[in-house]
C-alpha cells in the first residue's frame, strides 16, 4: 500500500523539480520542492491558502522564476524560460477569457499569435470547440456565457496549443456545487481522451482526492507528503497531512518501546497502546509521538465490544451532531480526552440512538491506528 506513493515505473517522468525555491523579499513562498510528475498523470497540489501551491504552479507556467533549483520538462531545463516559450498551458482561476473576442476568437488566439495557417487553424478550433462541447456557442461573446461555459473556453484555448502539461489554477472554485461535480467528471474525461499531464492546484481536498492520481500536500511552502489519494487518507505520515485531510482524532503519547513494525506507546489516561508503523526507525530517539485514528474507524456501542484486536475504552457521550445520513458523536473517554466518532444512521428511527450523558464503549482496530512524525 505504501508503495503507491511512487508512481508507476513504466510511466516516463515528464516534469522533474529539484530543490525549487521561491523567495519574495524575506518571505519564502516555496522551499526546496522536489517532485517527479509522470507522463499522462493527473497530479494535484493541495494545501491551505498561502501554502505556496499557486506560486509553484506559476513557476511551472513561467510567470515566476525560481530563486534556486531547476525545473526540467522532457529532460530540458526550462527554469528560466519565459511563459510564451514553454510547451505548457494554463487555465486561470478567473478564466481570463478575452472579453473583446468571441468564443471562436478566444480559442483561436494561441494559433493566431503563433502564425498557424488559416485552414489548419480553422480545423483545430473546430476540434477544440467540439472537445469542450462549445461548438454551438462559437460566435457568442464571453459576457453571454455562464461561468461554466467561460471555463470551457479557457480550457479549449489552452488545449488547442497541444501542451505537454496542462496547469489548472483552482479551476472549479468559482463554480456552484452542481456544476463543480460535472466539471470534475469532465476534466477526468478530457485527461483520458487527450493523454496530457494535468496539474491542478486546489484547496479542496475532495477535489484533489476524487480526481488526482497523486496528490502533493503543501504547507508553509514545503511539500509535506506526495501520495495516491488512498495512501494519503489512510496512511498520512505527518501530523499536518493527517489533520488537513479529512477528520482525525489526534492524541500524543510517550514512546515506551520500538519494534520493527510497531510502537508501544503510553497515552495519558488511556494506558498502553500498540500502533503499527511501516518504518519505526524514523522514531528513533523520540520520546513523544502522535497517535491518530479516523472518526469512521471508531465504533460506539452500548455493550463492551467483542474481538481481541480492538482497542476499547469506556466513556460518556458529550455531544451528538446530527447530519442526516450520519452523526458525529463526541465521547469523553474516562479519565482522558474527547474522541470523535462517525456513526452511520443506517436504520430509520424516531428518536436519537445516542444522547448526551449515555455511557458507551468506544473501540477501534489496533491496526487502524496511525503513528505520525512531527
Amino acid at each position: 500500500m505504501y508503495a503507491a506513493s511512487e508512481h508507476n515505473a513504466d510511466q516516463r517522468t515528464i516534469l522533474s523539480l529539484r530543490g525549487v525555491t521561491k523567495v519574495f523579499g524575506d518571505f519564502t513562498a516555496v522551499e526546496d520542492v522536489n517532485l517527479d510528475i509522470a507522463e499522462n498523470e493527473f497530479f494535484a497540489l493541495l494545501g491551505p491558502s498561502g501554502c505556496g501551491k499557486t506560486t509553484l504552479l506559476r513557476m511551472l507556467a513561467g510567470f515566476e522564476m525560481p530563486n534556486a533549483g531547476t525545473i526540467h520538462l522532457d529532460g530540458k531545463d526550462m527554469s528560466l524560460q519565459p511563459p510564451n516559450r514553454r510547451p505548457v498551458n494554463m487555465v486561470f482561476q478567473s478564466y481570463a477569457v478575452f472579453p473583446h473576442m468571441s468564443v471562436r476568437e478566444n480559442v483561436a488566439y494561441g494559433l493566431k499569435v503563433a502564425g498557424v495557417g488559416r485552414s489548419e487553424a480553422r480545423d483545430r478550433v473546430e476540434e477544440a470547440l467540439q472537445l469542450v462541447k462549445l461548438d454551438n456557442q462559437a460566435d457568442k461573446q464571453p459576457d453571454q456565457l455562464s461561468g461554466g461555459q467561460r471555463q470551457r473556453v479557457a480550457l479549449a484555448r489552452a488545449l488547442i496549443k497541444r501542451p505537454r502539461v496542462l496547469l489548472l489554477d483552482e479551476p472549479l472554485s468559482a463554480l456552484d456545487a452542481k456544476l463543480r461535480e460535472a466539471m470534475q467528471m469532465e476534466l477526468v474525461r478530457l485527461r483520458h481522451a487527450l493523454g496530457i499531464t494535468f496539474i491542478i492546484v486546489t484547496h479542496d481536498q475532495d477535489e484533489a482526492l476524487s480526481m488526482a492520481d497523486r496528490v502533493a500536500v503543501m504547507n508553509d511552502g514545503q511539500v509535506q507528503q506526495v501520495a495516491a489519494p488512498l495512501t494519503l487518507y489512510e496512511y498520512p505520515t505527518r501530523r499536518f497531512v493527517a489533520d488537513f485531510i479529512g477528520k482525525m482524532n489526534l492524541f500524543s503519547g510517550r514512546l515506551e518501546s520500538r519494534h520493527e513494525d510497531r510502537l508501544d506507546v503510553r497515552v495519558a489516561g488511556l494506558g498502553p497502546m500498540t500502533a503499527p508503523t511501516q518504518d519505526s526507525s524514523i522514531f528513533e530517539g523520540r520520546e513523544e509521538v502522535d497517535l491518530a485514528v479516523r472518526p469512521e474507524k471508531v465504533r460506539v456501542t452500548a455493550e463492551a465490544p467483542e474481538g481481541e484486536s480492538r482497542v476499547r475504552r469506556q466513556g460518556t457521550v458529550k455531544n451528538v451532531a446530527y447530519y442526516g445520513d450520519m452523526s458525529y458523536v463526541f465521547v469523553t473517554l474516562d479519565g482522558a480526552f474527547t474522541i470523535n466518532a462517525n456513526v452511520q444512521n443506517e436504520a430509520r428511527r424516531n428518536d436519537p440512538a445516542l444522547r448526551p450523558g449515555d455511557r458507551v464503549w468506544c473501540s477501534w482496530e489496533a491496526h487502524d491506528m496511525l503513528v505520525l512524525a512531527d
Partner: protein
Amino acid sequence: MSRSNSSLLAPHSENEARRPPRQHRKLPPGPLDYSRRWWMRLPLFLVFFFLYAPMVVLVAFSFNDSKRNIVWQGFTTDYYVAAFNNTELMEAFINSLTIALMNTVVATLLGTLVAIALWRFRFRGRAAFEGLTALPIVIPEICMGVAMMAFFARIGWPTDLPWPVNLVKITIAHIAFSFPFVAIVVRARLSNFDRALEEASTDLGATQWQNMRYILLPHLKPAVIAGALIAFTLSLDDFVITFFTAGPNTITLPVKIFSMVRFSVTPEVNAASTILILITIVTATLAMWLQGRSLMHPLRSRQTE
C-alpha cells in the same frame, strides 16, 4: 365568460373583495429629500439658470434680425450666411479645426503612452513624473499662456512660416496642456485591466507586442477615443493659451470671436459662437458616453467594433 371559468374566478374575486384596500401612509420628507423641499430645489434651479440662460439667449439671438442685437426684431438665418461668407472668420475656423486635429493625434498618442508607462513600469522618479504630468491641469491657464509666449520668443521660433506649418506653435502649446487629460482617462481604464488577461495571452505564446496589440489596446480603445475627443474639444475652444501663442496670421476661432466682440456683439458673433458650442457639445457628449462605457466592468463593456 364560460360558467366554469367564472366559478373558478369567484372565490378569487371574493378574496379580493374581503381584503381591505392597501393604504399607503404618506411619509414625512427626509431632511435631504430635495425633490419635496423648495429650499433645496432653489439652488439647483439658480445654478441651472445662470449656467444655461446666457447660452440660450446667445443661441436665440443668433437668429435675431437686428444689427445692434439688443432687442428682438424677428427671425432670420442671414447672420449664419454672413458668418460663412466672412473670410477672416472662416480662416480662423479652419485654423482652429486644423490645430485641433493635429493636437488630437499627438496628445492622444502621448497621453496613452504616458498612462501605460506609469501603470506598467516601476522606475526611479515615477511619482515625480506622475505629478509633473498632472501639472498642466492645475496650473492657471494664464500662467501657462505667458510662459509659452516667453518660451517661444526666447528660443526664437520663426514667425513667417507658410500655412499650415505656422500653426505648429499653437499646436505644441495645445498638446502640452491637453495630453494630461488623455493620460488621466486612459489611466482610469487601465486600473480595471485584468492582468490575468495579459498573462493568459503570454501563456498562449504571445510576445509583448502581441499582448499590447491584441489585448491591451482593444481594452483601452473606448478610453483612448474618449481621451481624443476631450483633447479635440479642449484645443478647439481654447482661448487663453492660444491668445498668447497666436500670431497675426494664425488667428483661431475663439480669438477671432473675442476680437469681433470688442467692436460690437453682432448676431454674426452669436452665429459663430453657436456653431462652436454645437461642435463642442457633440464631441463632449460622445467623449462622456464612451468614457462611461469604458469605466464599466471589463466583461460588461462590449467594445465598439
